[in-house]
């Protein structure tokens, strides 16, 4: 296993490097921080439910979906990241997640203690100091490797963190801000004098070496650079970010030859759409549309279903478009093509 002590790196590299290393079958400890701020969401999260995408776009704050679990976070250069990539079969890697977190959060805990912050492990994946969180951590299995990603929080921009989140109203945002101030602390808040970034990283490396053995220093070589470049188009495009293009195909039950009953589900940017449809000899014989999207006038949704009954599958999209025009339908983030996906699949 090697140590990549990379210092400040362009923000995409702060994520792509640890996604690339397991794909190259390399065990590593990576220490880095992003050169500019961005928002990072967990692998399974729904971007638009969690993040105020418009705010981020208007303020040139990029958003990234990682393969690691956890929630949406605002990351910047005042957070020092440790990223451990270890093979599942490595005898040093516990197979169960609690033991894994408990073991590999020991080095950052020790680093905090060395600078005078009484950090402690809090199951399952937190580090706290005086009952306040002082490090965020998440994990994933990527191929045959276990990944731990976490940070030492030198300083934290509470205001931006509360600003980038999607919240129902400003009162709720204020509550989020106050709660974070109360429950999340930083090195800057705990100590009169901030240690240097170099000394913190040196301490992290030393404490991880106590668990992992000597970690020879490595540089980002051509193979790693190429893998990061290869992953960039996948991880930095909107399809991955929104996880669109993977509508769930739902269930289809063949009732008889030529007669299918389908339950189709599609995640449009504006919300989830469900369609329960019966199709006989290529024509729709019954249809019910539902979901959690905004559709105005609301009573026209039933009429849209009725308008499609009797239509051939090939006519569906055009019929929906005509209906939209005729009834001046407004459905932000849901297009006629989205409805077509839950009618004809």
């Amino acid at each position, binding site marked *: 296993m090697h140590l990549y002590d990379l210092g400040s790196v362009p923000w995409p590299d702060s994520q792509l490097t640890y996604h690339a290393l397991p794909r190259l079958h390399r065990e590593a400890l990576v220490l880095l921080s992003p050169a500019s701020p961005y928002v990072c969401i*967990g*692998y*399974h*999260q729904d971007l638009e439910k969690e993040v105020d995408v418009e705010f981020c776009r208007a303020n040139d704050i990029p958003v990234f979906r990682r*393969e*690691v*679990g*956890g*929630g949406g976070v605002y990351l910047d250069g005042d957070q020092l990241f440790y990223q451990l990539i270890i093979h599942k079969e490595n005898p040093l890697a516990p197979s*169960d*997640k*609690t033991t894994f*977190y408990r073991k590999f959060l020991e080095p950052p805990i020790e680093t905090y203690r060395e600078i005078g912050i009484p950090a402690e492990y809090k*199951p*399952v*994946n937190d580090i706290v100091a005086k009952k306040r969180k002082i490090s965020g*951590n*998440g*994990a*994933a*299995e990527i191929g045959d490797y276990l990944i731990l990603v976490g940070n030492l929080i030198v300083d934290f921009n509470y205001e931006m963190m509360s600003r980038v989140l999607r919240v129902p109203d400003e009162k709720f945002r204020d509550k989020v801000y106050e709660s974070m101030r109360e429950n999340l602390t930083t090195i800057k808040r705990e100590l009169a004098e901030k240690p240097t970034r170099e000394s913190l990283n040196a301490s992290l490396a030393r404490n991880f070496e106590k668990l992992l053995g000597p970690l020879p220093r490595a540089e980002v070589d051509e193979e790693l650079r190429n893998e990061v470049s290869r992953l960039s188009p996948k991880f930095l495009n909107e399809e991955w970010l929104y996880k669109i293009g*993977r509508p*769930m*195909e*739902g*269930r289809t039950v063949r009732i008889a030859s030529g007669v299918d009953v389908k339950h189709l*589900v599609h995640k449009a940017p504006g919300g*989830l759409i469900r369609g329960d449809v019966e199709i006989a000899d290529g024509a729709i014989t019954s249809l019910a549309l539902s979901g959690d999207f905004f559709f105005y006038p609301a009573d026209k949704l039933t009429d849209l279903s009725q308008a499609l009954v009797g239509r051939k599958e090939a006519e569906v999209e055009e019929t929906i478009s005509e209906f939209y025009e005729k009834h001046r339908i407004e459905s932000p983030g849901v297009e006629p093509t989205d409805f077509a996906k839950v009618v004809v699949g």
Partner: protein
Amino acid sequence: MNIGEYNFPDELYYDKNHAWALVEGNAVTQGVTEFAQKISKEIVYVEVPRTGRTVEQGKTFMSMESGKWVGRIAAMVSGAITETNEELEWDVAPINEDPFGEGWLAKIEASDLGELDNLLKASDAEFQSFVESEIEKYKDILEGA
């Protein structure tokens, strides 16, 4: 039957990743056991695969998350996915509350039922011994520590 205090229905097959399989002809329904749910504490997300995709026994094909950990789930048999419990992507309650029933994950049309020989039944001594060692390993979590 119960192993410790955990239920493992006799009619199902099991693997050592805490998954179960119900075999009906060539149709294999796969899920995670009650024990898996207990040691995960609360499963917060499930990502199901697309129907039609082919999978290979022992290779991962879907993911779930608990404790900020994204874990991968391996297919119990090789074959084609014919149906998935896609509602779990929007509501994970069934997998936490009814992992042997409403919380099923995927249905696979098995391409080789001979692979069932690689799986275990609750009555197998090897499986009972495995579960007992897992109960010991996860004692702290199971006791709510």
